[in-house]
């Protein structure tokens, strides 16, 4: 992974990130800055896993 936090100048590391959609909160492992916590969601993840979860929750 060549993505770094521009502010802290460190490489991202996987951490548990809290997400929310349609009132449901859940935790997913995502790359994030270990110093300031900034999260990275790539287009691949956004249009892949994230969309699947969105569709699942929307069909509830």
């Amino acid at each position: 992974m060549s993505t770094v936090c521009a502010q802290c100048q460190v490489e991202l590391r996987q951490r548990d990130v809290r997400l929310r959609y349609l009132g449901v909160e859940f935790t997913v492992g995502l790359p994030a800055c270990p110093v300031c916590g900034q999260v990275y969601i790539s287009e691949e993840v956004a249009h892949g896993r994230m969309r699947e979860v969105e569709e699942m929750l929307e069909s509830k």
Partner: protein
Amino acid sequence: MDQAELRALEDRCVQDCPPSCTAACPAHLDVRGMMSAVADGRLAEALALVRAAVTLPVAVALTCDQPCRPVCLRGEHGDALMVRAIERACVALPATAPRGRRPPRRRGSVAVVGGGLTGIAAAQELAGKGCRVTLLERTGRLGGGVWSALPQASGTVVVAGAAGSPAAAVEAELAAAVSDVTVSYAEAITAGDLPALRAAHDAVILAFGVDDPGCLATALGSTGPERVSGATEIPGVFAGGSLTRASSGWSAVTSMADGRSLAVSVRRYLEGVSLTAGREGEGAGRSCLHVERSAVESAAAAPPADPQAGYDATEARREAGRCLQCACLECVKACVFLQRYGSYPKQYVRQINNSLILSPGMGYRASKTMIDSCALCGLCAAVCPHDLNMGEVCLDARRELVEKGYMPPAVHDFALHDMAQANGADFSCARHQPGAAASAFAFYPGCQLPASRPGEVRAAYEHLASRLDGGVGLLLGCCGAPAQWAGRESLAAEATAQLRASWETLGRPQLILACPSCQKTLMESAPEIPAVSLWEVLDEVGLPSGCGAAAVAVGGSPVVAVADPCAARDTPAVRAAARHLIARAGFELVELPWSGARTECCGWGGLQVIVDRQLTQATVARRVAEDPHDYVAYCAMCRDLFAGSGKRAWHLVDLLFGGPMFGDPALPGPRLTERQQARARFRRDLLRNAWGEDGDPRAQDDSTQLEISDEMRQKMDDELIGEDDLAAVIAASERSGRRLLDSATGHCLGHARRRLVTLWVEYSPLGQGRFAIHDTYTHRIEILDDEATEGRVGP
């Protein structure tokens, strides 16, 4: 709509009704399916269909009196299908090994009196279900009426792959049918024998032919057996067959079907369940299927080269190919959306009904995209023989989802936001004509046309102001159609209230509408506001002097095809005025195959394009392929969607108010995400020029300038991301310094929450407030513990 109403709607669709041939067949043989299989060379499948409906297929294939043929709709376009000959071609197939499994012996001993086709079929059915069956036949030969019917089919026949005489083939079939049945060639049974027979068995079937010698008929009482079940006055005794029918002559298929039906009655009797429930459809009847046949060409039957031998596989294939495959599907043929989901309204309504009412929320997944992607255009109702309107069903379902909180807010968010902008300070306004203190009329061009054709709209306004007395005010805003379509009734009511208030400030003028969707919406939501279409007014007050320049510019008297918008389906006066104006502007006009009351939607309707862009592309592709001439639309969204697909399309205002600067039919209109800015610009320019109003209170912030490739603009539009969205995210991430960096490319990646999505932008600063955009995407899920998104940006 409650469940009963939905059920009633479902019942209106007749696509499930059997075609005429099947309805007329006492055994309900799937003739259409058989023909389709034979025509495709799938003979074994066709044979399976015959066997599924007919207990004695050889006897039927050789002697059936074909009640299906007089009602076969092909008969009105050539000759009725040669149904029996096709059945014969099916039973000629080499036999497959008989299914081995014996049914378990179950309770029940049944006596069947009469060894004709009725009795044999009943006996075989019951034996197959595990009953102990005794078949009593007085003549010493099974088959009854079949032997006198058989000579018609003399010669050699091929059955199950082997050639032989017809009699031998039938003989073999009947023998096989009674292999599990005890056959007793007894003396004739008389009425006096009945009590003893009944006492010895759990049930008795009287299946005697026309020439009942034992006067058993007297046992049936004066009214005869019950029509559906064949039950007689004696419990457990059922009667059917030729004697009970007043019909003309013996019929193999009727006799056989009677036998099957009696077997069903006996099984129900033995199980102690209702004899008649759910059996209304049994037996021959009439079809309620609607079959559109205006384009059917006549085709005569193709008899077999050798009538003795019957059809060979190739001949059968050709003959079966003449079947019309009777079906309704009128709406499905008309609508790309209905085609998309692979079924037809009866099934769709049932699905929606199930997911909404039977298990609210739970089944939503299956039907949600369907419910949300209908264009609500009403074409289905216009072509349906029973006026079933899927648009109403889908709109109602949307309202219910919204009301119950099951509609994901993000689905229509873009359109609702767009509407809010059009009804906000950027666009909405009400003005008397410059210099006037009152308005007898007010021009209401809608929210889309001013974005697409600002110059022409302004010219139209000035023309109206010059021709009409009493003052022509200007009203800008959105009628609320997007909220209506999204199923958000309260939002729609707010939009109506806002329009009503503006209308009142202008002194309740008559509105002149340029958008057919506004007109349709206001007729329903604000019928007290007098409104008329721009086209009718122009047709009356006359055209501007420069009118016709467009026609001249493209040379001669150019031919155009008029594309009616779906919102004008029920306003013939508007459609007539549009045609009149096109002709007056010097164009020659041709009609599209789908026009007038049967016109198609472009995909903007119902917000389809927001929910399912690809579906709209398919809808538009079909629409623009209907005619090679330039199209003329009088709905801004029709025009822009057609042109966006590469079709040359004019808006009617181009033809009428064209000067040197008329709209180019070849150029696409503003993108969905560019319309807000375009309509804001229209308002600013018009108010400055015509009313001398300076300085927009919310002048645009042009400090951030973006360099965006065409490809990226297309992607933005597909994902409904606006340029202002990108600018807001970049500004926020530049301000806070919180962004990611791709160390390989040096690109920055910022993100922020915008409305109901998290928006990511990959960009590079170019200096002096300029940025190059490399990529952008969104997701609806919100990131919680991430400071970058905590402060949301913008609305």
